[in-house]
């Protein structure tokens, strides 16, 4: 447009330098300028130049995807800062963390930010996955992006897990010991894989090195690549799905508006609120640090990180191979196949896919909340399958048998919902998903709060 200044005066040097870098006016005044800026800007061109008005509704996506990306960036920034003051050897790791508390300006703040952002990220990406599931936004053509998201979820957990060891305190040392022992239960390659990860037979200096390399290089690099792919697929698959009410017909021609300023402003606001909230939290709540790691003395009880405690709780009820390998594999496999099994309802954009879907989800939550604690108590104090079936190996009596019983229960629930509840296959599968999700959350809560010394069931208020 006005690239050359007025006819009267040629462009000054400063202006020429500016114009060479910034080709479009940074504060566009009209619609065409807004569209062009999105397309020509390195960062902004992640977005389409126009978005559907309805998808801007905050309570549709809750900004969870964007929040995940924001948290990842925050973790990268704080992580790089921490790189300058931390050395991954058993001799110095713990003292470096202590020094952050006592001798480095804002050391405690940066560490807290990093720690809480990391924990928040697991919650946020899980919620993002749930949002995508419950609004049917994983249906074709978005199935592959769902898989990419699953990969990112696993990488996030991996990043959290590898970072957990780095402070080298009792909490870190034994949580990692427990979690890597879970890997040892994988048949055939379990021990080899565990040793590879640990750099030896036990957690030691080699483990710290390995986890450090994974945490600062391998996992972040992989995540960046897959994140880029993930965002790219969002665009290619048609952008955000369009929300609608349960009784509305699908939107044929959605109204669109420019990305600038509507979407950009929304993102900026949500990001700033999130940063402010995280900052305040990090200023007040310190990241935990126990005594220095002591390989000769395990604490009682020894618990893995909170996001693994559902799994650790499962271990108390099933044979280790079933709890540590079979169930997670089945769960991951089911999650991966979900979009490809979603056949009979095209209700993308409707929360819980339909009115009946909502009711069934609610019902499943209730059932899960009642059933899971009941089963935990029963198994803790009464059920003893290996004693009732002593002739069978424990893999069968305490593994295959309860697993088969649980699967049969799920099939029965599914059939009941379809026949009696008249649910569609989609709604029934959603209900099963909610039931299992509720069960897993309850198990995690039990694992965090209700397991005390010797991993015995104890009431936390006593």
């Amino acid at each position, binding site marked *: 447009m006005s690239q050359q200044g007025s006819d009267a005066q040629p462009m000054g040097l400063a202006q020429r330098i500016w114009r060479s870098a910034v080709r479009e006016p940074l504060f566009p005044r009209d619609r065409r300028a807004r569209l062009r800026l999105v397309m020509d800007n390195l960062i902004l061109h992640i977005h389409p130049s126009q978005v559907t008005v309805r998808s801007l509704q905050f309570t549709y996506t809750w900004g969870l995807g964007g929040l995940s990306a924001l948290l990842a960036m925050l973790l990268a920034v704080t992580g790089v800062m921490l790189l300058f003051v931390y050395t991954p050897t058993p001799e110095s790791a713990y003292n470096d963390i202590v020094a952050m508390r006592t001798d480095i300006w804002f050391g405690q703040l940066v560490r807290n930010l990093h720690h809480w952002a990391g924990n928040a990220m697991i919650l946020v990406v899980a919620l993002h996955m749930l949002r995508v599931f419950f609004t049917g936004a994983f249906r074709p053509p978005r199935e592959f992006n769902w898989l990419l998201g699953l990969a990112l979820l696993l990488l996030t957990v991996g990043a959290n897990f590898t970072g957990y060891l780095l402070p080298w305190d009792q909490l870190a040392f034994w949580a990692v010991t427990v979690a890597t022992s*879970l890997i040892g239960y994988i048949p055939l390659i379990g021990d080899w894989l565990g040793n590879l990860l640990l750099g030896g037979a036990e957690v030691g200096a080699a483990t710290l090195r390995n986890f450090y390399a994974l945490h600062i290089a391998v996992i972040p690099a992989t995540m960046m690549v897959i994140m880029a792919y993930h965002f790219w697929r969002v665009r290619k698959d048609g952008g955000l799905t369009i929300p609608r009410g349960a009784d509305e017909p699908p939107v044929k021609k959605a109204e669109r508006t420019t990305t600038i300023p509507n979407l950009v402003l929304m993102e900026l606001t949500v990001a700033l609120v999130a940063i402010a909230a995280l900052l305040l939290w990090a200023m007040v709540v310190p990241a935990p640090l126990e005594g220095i790691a002591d390989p000769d003395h*395990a604490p009682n009880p020894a618990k893995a990180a909170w996001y693994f405690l559902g799994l650790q709780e499962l271990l*108390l009820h099933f044979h280790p191979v079933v709890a540590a390998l079979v169930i997670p594999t089945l769960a991951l496999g089911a999650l991966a196949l979900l979009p490809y099994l979603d056949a009979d309802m095209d209700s993308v954009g409707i929360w819980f896919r339909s009115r009946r879907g909502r009711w069934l989800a609610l019902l499943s939550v209730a059932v899960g909340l009642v059933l899971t604690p009941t089963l935990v108590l029963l198994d803790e104090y009464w059920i003893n399958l290996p004693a009732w079936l002593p002739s069978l190996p424990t893999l069968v009596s305490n593994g295959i048998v309860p697993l088969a019983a649980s699967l049969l229960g799920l099939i029965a629930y599914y059939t009941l919902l379809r026949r009696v509840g008249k649910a569609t296959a989609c709604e029934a599968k959603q209900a099963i998903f909610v039931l299992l999700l509720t069960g897993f959350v309850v198990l995690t809560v039990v694992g965090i709060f209700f397991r005390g010394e*010797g991993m015995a069931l104890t009431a936390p208020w006593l």
Partner: protein
Amino acid sequence: MSEETTRRDFLKMAWGVLGAVALAEAGGVALAFSQPRIAEGSFGSVITAGHVDEFPPGSVTPFNEGRFFLSRLPDGGFLALYRKCTHLGCAVPWDATAGEFICPCHSARFDPSGEVIDPPAPRPLDLFPITIEDGMVKVDTGTVIQREKFDPSQVVYA
């Protein structure tokens, strides 16, 4: 059409296969590179525990550097028990008053021969091979022996 494309197709496929093999080899190199080194220092090597007579029958002696307990059974036989709990890897201490190994993490219990008294341990404590040369007990902490049950053949006699 079939004759010409077949040769080109064959060459394409051959190239693809070769490329896949190259990738697999690179993967193998990366894996071998990442293998754990033989432990620097005591754990992972052969440790001389002491003279046979230093360990009275019925005794359990801890060796923290070697991560094991040397248990001498009442009949005089030796077992080197890896202190790593077979449930989830915690270091199991020896409780002399109770005469058992009691794991602090999830309360698994083992008897002096490493057999499971109380779950959730799925199998007895692992063993390290023992050789006795000229009355000196030597424990090879580089080799872990797993077992489903205690067997008298696992015990080493002086």
